[in-house]
């Protein structure tokens, strides 16, 4: 084990952490918003839209993440060019990676949100209507908070998954944690050392995220029976 290499490389790999987090956080925010919208469309069985969402989810979940990245990186600029005439090749690769990760998060999270929304019994929605609340008020104040508490353990898994997923952005040339470590390892063939560093960093990020989600889960789930905690 080359400890000198580790000492030198560690700060540089750490410097790439913000790139990883930027991709993960942006893809998560956009993906989960899309996921919620799709879940609502499917739960309310909105014609056409509901079927389109189901097809989208099935399609995205059937494609390996790497392929999704390649399609986003190579095909999206062509599509944009032929549709609008705008040359999108100068857009940094990270945005194509974020687009692919967003689609992935949207598909997987919509299933999580759909199950969570279904877990809130319809009776509460009817009760909200019966006191004169609008559907939006009922969703915002009664249904969504409960659904979120149910969804959180799975969302936590999705978020940690996407952090690891960002490592694939390496293939389209985004210098996040994995790509940076590889780059530093190549001249001296210090691959083992580089992967030890990346492993530790990913583990640490995952650990912190799991903790944050867990405490959010406890806060949002206060209303549940103590035995189910």
């Amino acid at each position, binding site marked *: 084990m080359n400890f000198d290499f580790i000492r030198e490389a560690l700060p540089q790999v750490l410097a790439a952490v913000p790139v990883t987090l930027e991709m993960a956080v942006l893809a998560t925010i956009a993906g989960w918003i899309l996921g919620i919208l799709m879940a609502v469309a499917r739960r309310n069985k909105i014609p056409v839209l509901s079927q389109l969402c189901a097809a989208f989810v099935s399609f995205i979940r059937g494609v390996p993440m790497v392929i999704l990245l390649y399609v986003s990186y190579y095909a999206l600029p062509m599509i944009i060019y032929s549709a609008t005439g705008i040359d999108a090749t100068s857009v940094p690769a990270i945005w194509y990676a974020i687009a692919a990760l967003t689609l992935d998060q949207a598909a997987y999270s919509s299933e999580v949100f759909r199950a969570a929304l279904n877990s809130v019994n319809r009776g509460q929605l*009817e*009760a909200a*209507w019966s006191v*004169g609340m609008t559907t939006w008020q009922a969703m915002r104040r009664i249904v969504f908070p409960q659904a979120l508490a149910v969804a959180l353990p799975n969302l936590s898994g999705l978020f940690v998954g996407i952090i690891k997923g960002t490592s694939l952005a390496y293939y389209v040339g985004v210098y996040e944690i994995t790509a940076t470590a590889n780059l530093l390892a190549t001249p001296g063939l210090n691959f083992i050392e580089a992967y030890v560093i990346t492993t530790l960093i990913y583990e640490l990020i995952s650990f912190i995220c799991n903790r944050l989600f867990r405490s959010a889960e406890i806060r949002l789930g206060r209303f549940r029976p103590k035995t189910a905690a």
Partner: protein
Amino acid sequence: MMVSLKNIRKSFGSQQVLNGVDLEIDVGEVVVILGPSGSGKTTLLRTINFLDPGDEGSVTVGNHTVNCKKHSRPDVLQLRRRTAMVFQNYNLFANKTILENVMEGLVTVKRRPKPVAEEISRKMLTRVGLSERFDYYPSALSGGQQQRAGIARALVLEPDVILFDEPTSALDPELVGEVLQTIKGIAETGITMIVVTHEIAFAKEVASRVIYMQDGVIVEQGSPSEILVHPKDPRTQRFLRRITDPSQDPKHIDMREDSPANEKSVPTSA
């Protein structure tokens, strides 16, 4: 006239549930609706606040009339803001404390400032005997306590009419009494109430009018003694015989409600 239903018809798929129901209810009346399961009594109640909109007919509460065939969203909202409902399964908001449950309508619908809403809600909960439970979540309460909170949530909005949908059917037998006592106390304040129930004794004691429904129509109606003691229609007579002494009728199993509480108490001899 407080509530007026005209020619309400409703079907679920090919199943005709309400076959043209007309009903007029005066201010301060306590109307109890009885009938076997599948008679349409709960559906009738739910057409009043459009949780199940009728296919035909019209609903009037106070001076607000809504046509079932062409109702707009604001129309329905108006109607719902003049009524309140107490549900068989309580349907309390699980993510809110008992106090927040009662405050919810006051704050979001009636736009009362929070401190005002809170004070009114505390008084209402005290009235239904839950002064020790303000900050409990529904999951920490017994069925009877949850249902009394549900009653407080309905009552606090000062609706023109309160709709009770089998309010004691899901309760353990020993908890039925406390809820019926609470409802009786409210009835004495003069608020208009429509109660769908199987509690004959309660109907006798509290109702100003009893309605017997079967097969989506009102079979007969009148004072408690007219309907419960001297029913004229053979269908009412048969129903009362079955419900007061199920063991006398081999078909009693058809009469049960599919609620957990009743399921337990019905012998499974069929």
